[in-house]
């Protein structure tokens, strides 16, 4: 990547026997909002702390703007950060909290006032400057934390689950705002979350982490639609899982036998006839079909979700499959239905070493 701002080269970090980061390599471009997604304990915070310089990696290098900063302490890296629980300084006012990075840089009073004004307007905090953190609402604290991260116009902003403690409404609003700041400032944001909706909403590119390893990095649509590993396929969206035997492999496709049914799906490395395979099909990619259906069953229940609905289909042999579709399909419970999906919408992986 030519305009690469942050580069991690085989970064490894152990805590005792836990591998919190295992040979992680990563590049983030000049103007990206890059999301780091992974379940709890997968090492996201550890990776951010290594980038910030709060923890030193056991192996590997960290480069910011082409400069090797691996051995540089956090206060010499010139980056901004928004912490998981905000971590506002409880004994300082909002203005003092936000101005803290400027104070550390020894900025003059006039410059500080200018920057404060600019950032307060950016994050819409004007009027709250003299309050103390315990006098703020959750959303306001969140903005102060953001303002503090942005005020010194860092070359890179790290955000560690900044919205995790907010309610759903506020979270939706802040998602949009954070995207706006990123576009306005034109600096890379590295956004850590375990909430895939958040990552899919905000990011341009993203990476999925699992037990300290990066499973897949790439465009968010690519990760969603073309998962490269079984973990990513199972983690993103809410897929149906079919575990069966591989009957044949040809042209990058595999034919899977599953409880007497047969269907095709994209084949990933390591599939060969006779092996066990797990196949993931996202529920919204399965459609009802009146003719030529791959599987037949009865509708057991409909779960209304607002913009869509989950239809629980019970196959004749007792297995249950979830189909997400428009909420206004007039299927009644007990009704016989057929379902089908395109071969390219399934992803089959070898069953060994699966989740």
């Amino acid at each position: 990547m030519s305009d690469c701002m942050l580069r991690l080269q085989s970064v490894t970090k152990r805590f005792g026997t836990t591998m919190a980061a295992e040979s992680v390599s990563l590049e983030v471009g000049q103007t990206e909002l890059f999301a780091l997604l992974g379940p709890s304990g997968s090492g996201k915070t550890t990776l951010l702390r290594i980038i910030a310089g709060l923890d030193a990696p056991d192996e590997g290098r960290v480069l910011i703007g082409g400069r090797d900063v691996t051995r540089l302490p956090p206060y010499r890296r010139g980056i901004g950060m928004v912490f998981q629980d905000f971590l506002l300084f409880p004994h300082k006012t909002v203005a003092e909290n936000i101005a803290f990075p400027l104070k550390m840089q020894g900025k003059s009073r006039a410059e500080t006032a200018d920057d404060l004004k600019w950032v307060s307007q950016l994050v819409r905090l004007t009027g709250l400057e003299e309050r103390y953190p315990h006098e703020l609402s959750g959303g306001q604290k969140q903005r102060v934390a953001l303002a503090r991260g942005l005020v010194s116009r860092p070359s890179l902003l790290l955000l560690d689950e900044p919205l995790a403690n907010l309610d759903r409404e506020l979270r939706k609003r802040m998602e949009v705002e954070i995207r706006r700041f990123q576009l306005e400032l034109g600096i890379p944001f590295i956004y850590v979350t375990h909430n895939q909706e958040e990552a899919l909403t905000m990011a341009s590119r993203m990476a999925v982490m699992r037990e300290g390893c990066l499973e897949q990095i790439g465009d968010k649509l690519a990760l969603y639609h073309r998962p490269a590993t079984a973990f990513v396929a199972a983690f993103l969206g809410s897929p149906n899982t079919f575990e069966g035997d591989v009957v044949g492999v040809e042209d990058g496709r595999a034919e899977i036998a599953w409880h007497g049914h047969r269907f095709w799906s994209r084949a990933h490395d390591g599939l060969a006839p006779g092996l066990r395979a797990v196949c993931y099909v996202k529920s919204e990619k399965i459609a009802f079909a009146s003719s030529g259906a791959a599987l037949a069953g009865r509708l057991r229940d409909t779960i209304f979700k607002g913009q869509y609905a989950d239809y629980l289909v019970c196959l004749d042999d007792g297995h249950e499959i979830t189909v997400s579709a428009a909420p206004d399909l007039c299927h009644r419970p007990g009704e016989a239905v057929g379902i089908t999906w395109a071969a390219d919408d399934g992803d089959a992986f070898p069953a060994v070493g699966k989740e």
Partner: protein
Amino acid sequence: MNHRSGFGVQVLLLAALYLFLYGPILYVIYVSFQIDSIWPFPPTLTLEHHTDLWQRRDYHAALWNSVTIGFGTGLIATLFATLAAMAILKYRSPGSGLVAGLFLAPLFIAPILIGISSLMFSRTVLGMPGSIFGATLANSTYATAFALLVVLAQFARYDWRLDDAAMVFGARPWRTFWEITLPITWPAMLGAFIVSFLLAFNNLEISFYNLGATPTLPTLAWGALRHGISAELYALAAIINFAVFALFTVLYLLLRLGTIRID
């Protein structure tokens, strides 16, 4: 035992406890202002015992020695306890349990054992006769345990990731301590100082063996008490109790202040 009577019994017990703890102290303070200290009823007010006490040169020297021991111990214990508490809570390193065990061990060792063992050690191994210095060191081992308890209880509320935040925003370690850690945690440190100062100031069983011929207020009082209780002892007890309560009020305010709202 129903709820209401249980509550009443507990209130009574608490009141009785305070009466038990403070009755003798208040009575001594009362007696110190009375002419007849054996049967001071009806009250006949006098300042005689207090003025007598102030004129006793030996008490002046002893007071000064006690203050010196208290101050030295306060400084040593607070410094070591603060450093250890920070290290234990901030780094959560393996070995924390061992270190905490060592620092708190004096709580489980009788003061007289600390007294005689440090006496034997400094006299025989270090070749030092008893002195204020030796007494201060011996008291510091005991006081460090109490100081650590005070500091740990308060530091447990502090979120050490605030230090991380300050560092990311450009503060060097000392600046971080000065700007963030100290302003939030100083009440705990001062509280630890007050507790260890008072412990050493009033200590008898450790100081006694390590002082040599140097007098302090407790050893002087011990000597006086051997000849039976005397009027100036009442005055001394009254003054010391006043001083302890004054410092305790400060301590209380500090602990209150120390609970910075982190929400």
